[in-house]
């Protein structure tokens, strides 16, 4: 009996969520079209304003949901790292540092994102740390290139060939080796590379539209599955 009631409630909530998702999705999509529509939509007075108004409210609600999700994210961070400390994992000292940093940032950040304390944390702690981490990319690119530059089939042969030409065409020594190298490099970047990138982007655009339509038509339901 209870199982039957639970199943019914679950079915109703699933259908309800799907209907809400479809209706909201259709309104936001309609808002996108309404914004681009030249003149009144099919000659109906005020329809554009109504769709625009509803779409605007839905986007505002999204911002509120995202802000609430951020709060849940912070709870998740505390939960995960408190669990590490509680379980006395080998690197739990880092979890302690993280939780202390979180608390300190919260206290210093009470004045808001534009307060001098928050600006200090961003300018003198966060940004230098991010820059340091991204500086590692130079080394990582070198090691990744070293591994990728092993020719084992036709595909990797062309990968290496084009990489060498672009690399030499990019640096002054390439010009001394052969004056045409920078010209070939430019051609590689502007013709085959751009054509390939556009092909990928075309596929990505179609894939994105198809994914959106599946959600909009209720065929994909990531919010209930």
């Amino acid at each position, binding site marked *: 009996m209870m199982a039957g009631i639970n199943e019914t409630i679950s079915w109703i909530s699933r259908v309800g969520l799907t209907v809400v998702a479809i209706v909201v999705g259709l309104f936001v999509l309609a808002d996108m079209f309404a914004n681009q529509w*030249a003149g009144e939509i099919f000659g109906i007075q005020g329809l554009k304003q109504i769709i625009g108004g509803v779409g605007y409210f839905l986007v505002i609600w999204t911002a509120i949901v995202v802000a609430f999700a951020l709060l849940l994210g912070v709870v998740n961070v505390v939960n995960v790292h408190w669990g590490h400390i509680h379980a006395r994992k080998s690197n739990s000292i880092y979890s302690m540092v993280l939780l202390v940093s979180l608390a300190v940032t919260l206290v210093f950040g009470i004045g808001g994102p534009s307060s001098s304390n928050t600006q200090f944390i961003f300018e003198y702690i966060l940004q230098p740390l991010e820059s340091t981490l991204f500086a590692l*990319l130079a080394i990582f690119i070198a090691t990744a290139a070293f591994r990728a530059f092993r020719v084992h089939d036709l595909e990797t042969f062309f990968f290496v060939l084009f990489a060498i030409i672009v690399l030499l065409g990019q640096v002054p020594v390439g010009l001394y080796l052969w004056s045409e190298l920078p010209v070939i490099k430019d051609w590689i970047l502007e013709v085959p590379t751009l054509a390939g990138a556009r092909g990928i982007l075309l596929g990505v655009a179609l894939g994105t539209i198809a994914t959106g339509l599946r959600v909009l038509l209720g065929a994909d339901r990531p919010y209930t599955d």
Partner: protein
Amino acid sequence: MNQALLALAFLLGFIGLLTFFTVRVRAGQKPALRRIRAFDTLKELMGRAVESGRMLHVSLGVGSMANQSTADSLAGLSVLNFLSDQAAETNTPPIVSMSDPTVMLFAQNAVRTAHADSLAGVEEASRQVRWIAPQPAAYAAGVMNILDSEEVDGTVMVGKFGDEYLLMGETAARHGMAHIGGTSDPNTLPFIYASAQETLLGEEIYAAGAYLKNNPANLASLVAQDGIRWVVALIIIGGVLVATLNWGWLWILIAVLIAVFLASIIVSWLR
């Protein structure tokens, strides 16, 4: 011409094709899918991790569920759905990381649904879903720490990524762990190609539902995408010819070609 009307017509055409192919796939017709090695490997990764007594790491990237990167995040969630279902059978939930808290909510939903049969399983799986940080660099640092310090056998990174991918990808490569990467951003693809063992390039990430779960709507959307791709290619080639030769009447020929092409696909799927 009204651009919005043109876009609406395109969208309605897409919906029409998608609905038609979904009905046909549900009726039992299946499209022939080309082999994508990354999906074959993905099906074996969880088994390998269980055998080695270690965990799998799934990264959903730096994308969100509330902006242009939603489709990429949904693609990552499709992969997570598949791996979570596999993990539920052996009760070895993967570590799931992401940079956006909205994606975290969907990831928690996915692992909870997969482990719904056991309360302990739900709790353990939910504990392994970790929101790390909203900044890409901080997120990469968090993932590098997971790959370095946790007992991870392999990593699957599918979603929206930027330059930070290489920091995580190289950490995985340094540990010699199984590594599948995929994103739609052409600027990030070289990093994935250089560091991952198996790659999902561009639109391949959106095919996860079709390849991993044989979902009729996903299979149908692959066929619809292929049909529309040919139409777009014909329009591009036609546009180049019309602009080069200045033959406006060529558009009529192209329109007829497109109509014949679409009709032939539909007829072949009606048999």
